[in-house]
C-alpha cells in the first residue's frame, strides 16, 4: 500500500519525455543499391506517442533502431532533446533510452528483479535504490512485487513478460522509450489490455514513445501521431490518427488504412471520453443480502466486488447475491473489463466476448472508475460522426528524395544538395 502511494506522489504531472529530431537520416547497407532509409527528416515531439507503420521491409524498424543507434546511420544527424547524439558512445546513449522488443526480450537466466535492475546497475545506482525502483516499477505495470520479484521469466505469461519488458525499459527513467512491435506476440485480448496499460502508464510518466507496429488499428489507438512509411522509409503521411483517417494523403495510405474507415471512428474515441455510469461497489466479507437490497434499491443489475486497492475482483448479479451468504473475494477472469484508455472498439469487443451489455472500466493501476454500456457506445459513435476534426499543427516529416538515386555516392551527394 505504502509503495503505491509513494510512487503515485512521485509522478510529476509535466512531460518528462524529450523531443527527437532525425535530420536527413539515411541508411544504406553495403552491397545494396537502394537505401533502407532514404534522407528521412522527422520531428518527434516531446511527451507524445509516435507510431511507425508500414508494410514489412519498409524501413520503419531500421529507422527506430537508428534513434538509439543499434543501427548506425550512413549519414544524417540524430538530435535528442537538443543534443546531437550521432557521434556519442552508443552504449551510453542506449542506457538513456528505454528499449522494448517483442515478447519483452527478458533474459531467461535472470529473475524479474534482476532483469529490471540491469540498466540502473550499469549506471551504478546504490543497491537499496535499485530494489526500491524495481518494486515501484512492478507496481506501475500492475504486477505484485512480492509475488513476481523473484520469478524467472519462464514462469510468467506472455503478457506478464511484456509488462516486465516495459518495466525494464523504464527502469532508469529514460526520457525516450523505443518499442519494436511490442505486442506482436500476445493474443488479441492480452494485447488490448497491454495497450490500455501502456496508455495508462504513459499518462503517468509522459515519456516520448516511438513504437513500430504493422497493425494500423494499434497505431490509431496508441498514437498521438502516426507516420506511415513506404519502401525505403519514404514518408507517405505523418499526422494525427483523426486526420489520416479523414484525409488519407495518397492511394497508398488509403489502401493501408483498409476499408471500413468510417467504422474506424470507433477506434478514435476512448472510453474515458464518454460518460460512464457509476458502479455499485462492495468488498469481500460483506453480507450478501445487504448488498442485494442495496442493488434493488438502486435499480442496478450488478454489484462490483473490489479489493483493498479498489481493483475489481468480480461482478455479482441478483441471482448470485441471493444464493450467497457473504461476498466472496475470488477473482473472476471472465469478467468484462476495459481500461479507460481503451477505444470504444475494444469496449464493444469485450462486451461481445463476455456476452454482456456492459463492461467495467478501470483506470490507473486497475482501479475501478465506472461502467460502460452498449448504449453509451452507440451514442458516442453517433456523436463522433458529427464532430469536427480538432485543429492542430502536425510535426515535421519529409524525405529529401534520396530514394531515387541509384548508387551510394550519388545518394550522399544528392541528399546534401537537396537539403538546402
Amino acid at each position, binding site marked *: 500500500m505504502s509503495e503505491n502511494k509513494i510512487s503515485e506522489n512521485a509522478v510529476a504531472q509535466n512531460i518528462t519525455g524529450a523531443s527527437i529530431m532525425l535530420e536527413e537520416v539515411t541508411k544504406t547497407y553495403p552491397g545494396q543499391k537502394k537505401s533502407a532509409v532514404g534522407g528521412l527528416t522527422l520531428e518527434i515531439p516531446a511527451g507524445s506517442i509516435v507510431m511507425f507503420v508500414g508494410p514489412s521491409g519498409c524501413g520503419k524498424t531500421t529507422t527506430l533502431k537508428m534513434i*538509439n543507434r*543499434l543501427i548506425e546511420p550512413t549519414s544524417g544527424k540524430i538530435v535528442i532533446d537538443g543534443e546531437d547524439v550521432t557521434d556519442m558512445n552508443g*552504449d*551510453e*546513449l*542506449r*542506457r*538513456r*533510452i*528505454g*528499449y522494448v*522488443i*517483442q*515478447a519483452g*526480450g*527478458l*533474459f*531467461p*537466466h*535472470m*529473475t524479474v528483479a534482476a532483469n529490471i535492475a*540491469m*540498466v540502473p546497475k*550499469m549506471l551504478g545506482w546504490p543497491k537499496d535504490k535499485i530494489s526500491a525502483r524495481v518494486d515501484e516499477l512492478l507496481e506501475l505495470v500492475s504486477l505484485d512485487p512480492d509475488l513476481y520479484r523473484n520469478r*524467472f*521469466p*519462464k514462469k510468467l505469461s506472455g503478457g506478464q513478460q511484456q509488462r516486465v519488458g516495459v518495466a*525494464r*525499459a523504464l527502469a532508469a527513467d529514460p526520457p525516450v522509450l*523505443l518499442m519494436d512491435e511490442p505486442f506482436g506476440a500476445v493474443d488479441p485480448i492480452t494485447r488490448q489490455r497491454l495497450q490500455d496499460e501502456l496508455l495508462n502508464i504513459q499518462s503517468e510518466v509522459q515519456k516520448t514513445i516511438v513504437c513500430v507496429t504493422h497493425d494500423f488499428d494499434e497505431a490509431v489507438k496508441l498514437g498521438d501521431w502516426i507516420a506511415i512509411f513506404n519502401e525505403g522509409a519514404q514518408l507517405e503521411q505523418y499526422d494525427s490518427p483523426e486526420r489520416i483517417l479523414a484525409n488519407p494523403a495518397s492511394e497508398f495510405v488509403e489502401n493501408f488504412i483498409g476499408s471500413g474507415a468510417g467504422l474506424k471512428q470507433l477506434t478514435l474515441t476512448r472510453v474515458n471520453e464518454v460518460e460512464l455510469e457509476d458502479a455499485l461497489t462492495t468488498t469481500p466479507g460483506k453480507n450478501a443480502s445487504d448488498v442485494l437490497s442495496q442493488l434493488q434499491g438502486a435499480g442496478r443489475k450488478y454489484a462490483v466486488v473490489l479489493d483493498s486497492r479498489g481493483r475489481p475482483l468480480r461482478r455479482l448479479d441478483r441471482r448470485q447475491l441471493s444464493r450467497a451468504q457473504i461476498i466472496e473475494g475470488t477473482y473472476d477472469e471472465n469478467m468484462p473489463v476495459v481500461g479507460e484508455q481503451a477505444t470504444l472498439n475494444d469496449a464493444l469487443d469485450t462486451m461481445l466476448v463476455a456476452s454482456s451489455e456492459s463492461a467495467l472500466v478501470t483506470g490507473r493501476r486497475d482501479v475501478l472508475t465506472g461502467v460502460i454500456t452498449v448504449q453509451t457506445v452507440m451514442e458516442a459513435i453517433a456523436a463522433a460522426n458529427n464532430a469536427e476534426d480538432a485543429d492542430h499543427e502536425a510535426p515535421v516529416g519529409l524525405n529529401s528524395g534520396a530514394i531515387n538515386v541509384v548508387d551510394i555516392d550519388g545518394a550522399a551527394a544528392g541528399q546534401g544538395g537537396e537539403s538546402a
Partner: protein
Amino acid sequence: MRSETRSLIWQIAGIAAAFAILVGWLVTADLTETERQTLDPATIWGYTLDHLKITVIAAVIVLLIAIPLGVLLTRPGLRKAAPAVRAIANFGQAAPAIGVIVLLAFWLGFGPKTAIISLVIYAILPVLSNTIVGLQQVDARLVEAGRGIGMSQMAVLFKVELPLAVPVMLSGIRTALVLLVGTATLATFINGGGLGILITTGVNLNLNVVLIAGSLLVALLALTVDWLGRVVEQVARPRGLS
C-alpha cells in the same frame, strides 16, 4: 530434474558396485607372483594418479584453447572462419589417436609431454564445437535486447551469451573429459605413463588378470569422470532455464 538425480545416483552406485566386485575378485583370485607384483595397490594408485594428471593437464589446455577460440569464432568478424576451423578440429578427432600419438612422439620425442599434446589435439573438437553451437543457439533477440538497453558487447557476452550457452558447453566438456580418460591409456606407448601400462603389460606378458583389471579400471575411471561431469552440469545449469 528428479529423474536426472535418480539416474546420477544409479550411475555412481553402479560404478561403486563394479569396483567392489573387481577388488573382491582380485583379492580372492589365485594370482601368480608376477601378477601380484604388477597389481600391488600402491603401484596401481600411482598409475591412476599419473593417468589423471595427464588427463587433467590436457583438459585444462583444451579448455584454455577451445573456449576462447569458440567465442572468437562466433563474433561477427570471424564468424565466416568457423566452418574451416571446425573442419581442422574435426580432423584432429577423426585421425586415429594411436597414430597421432606415435607420429608426434617421433617428431617431439617420447614422454608425457607429447602424450598431453596429442590428447589436446584429440579432445579439442567437442569443446570447440559445443562452445560455438552453445553461443549460436542463444536467441539473437536477447543479444539485441542486451545491446538495446546499453550493455557493451563484452557485457552481453559474459552476462547473457555465455551463461545461456553453459549447458551445451558443459556437455561438450564432459564428452572431452571422457574421451581424454579413455585415450590417455595410449600414453603408455610413448612412455607417457598412466593406467595403460597395465594393459600393455597384460598383453605382452600374457597376464590376463592384469589385462582385465587394467581395462576395467580405465573404464570405471572414465565412468566416474562422466558422473562428475554430469553432477557439475546439474549444479552449474543457470536457474530459470528448465
